């Protein structure tokens, strides 16, 4: 998955402003993600990649870059 696709999924699930989705953006502070939106994003990423992401892992990801890096590893 490239960064643009991740950005698309984030904008889609969080209904947030596209310009805000930068690598350094913090999910909570900048994108104002709440716990239910996080679940939505979690499931959208699982569907996209066809892998299961443990609940404990998703909580460790803070920025958009963290999510991107995690997905690169998960896919490999």
């Amino acid at each position, binding site marked *: 998955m490239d960064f643009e696709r991740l950005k698309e999924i984030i904008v889609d699930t969080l209904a947030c402003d596209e310009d805000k989705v930068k690598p350094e953006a913090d999910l909570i502070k900048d994108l104002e993600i*709440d716990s*239910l939106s996080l*679940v*939505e994003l*979690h*499931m959208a990423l*699982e569907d996209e990649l066809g892998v*299961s992401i*443990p*609940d*404990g892992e998703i909580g460790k990801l803070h920025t958009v870059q963290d999510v991107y890096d995690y997905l690169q590893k998960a896919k490999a």
Partner: protein
Amino acid sequence: MEKKRLNEILGIRYPIIQGGMANIASGEFAAVCSEAGALGLIGSGGIRSAEELRRQIHILRERTKKPFGVNLMLMNPETEKMVDIVCEEKVPVVTTGAGNPGAYMERFKAAGILVIPVVAAPILAKHLERIGADAVIAEGCESGGHIGEMTTMTLIPQTVDAVDIPVIAAGGIADHRQMQAVLTLGACGAQIGTALLAAEECPIHENYKEAVLKAQGSDTIVTGRIGGTPVRVLKNQMSREYVKREKAGEDRMELEKFTLGSLRRAVFEGDTKNGSLMAGQSCGQLKEIRPVAEILAEICRGI
């Protein structure tokens, strides 16, 4: 194929789970509810040590051989040890609230426990089904205590459509009309909390019971909306003051201090002015104190 009702799934008489109300749902009360034909739940919220939970399980088992469950409040600092205890004790059913039970799922499954998380949104139900929940309790914001945003009317059909596992409705169900309604919406049964506050056997202070009976359906208020932990309680001096301070932008820690121990004050001391009298909007329908068995029979009349 006709969907199975909750009573068939659990091997009990009525399609009802008794809500695992913190500080209220003791082993003794849960035993009464199981004996009367519902699934009695011991509420772990308010239980301070894991060993106390074990003691409550033993108290229940001395009084009934019928199926029962434990509600685990996942925010409880003793959760880790309590998970061990429900597994060791082979508790038949665990319901979970205030968090995501994902991290404990494997241990529950290995102990043969039926896991039924409480959810307030269809998306969470979908996620929990994916990680192995056996059913979900979808709780609308009509209910008492900690609540979400969606109403039972919208939450139940959307959750039923989102998952293949059974959905149990909660929030606003206190008589046979509402039970019929949630079955129509696709639920397989209901969890009942508020209606059981008015039970003869319910171990809350008489003043609390009186306040619930006196309350109109419009006499509840939601505290903590701004801070992100909404809780539905009866309007009284304390809850009104809380909401006022919250609107004025008072610091969360200060507000927390203000409510510290308030549920215990209501349940055990009967302090109706400064206690937190948790109750759902169905309080407006409750007119008299009756035995649990009568309340359950009335809710299931005609279904």
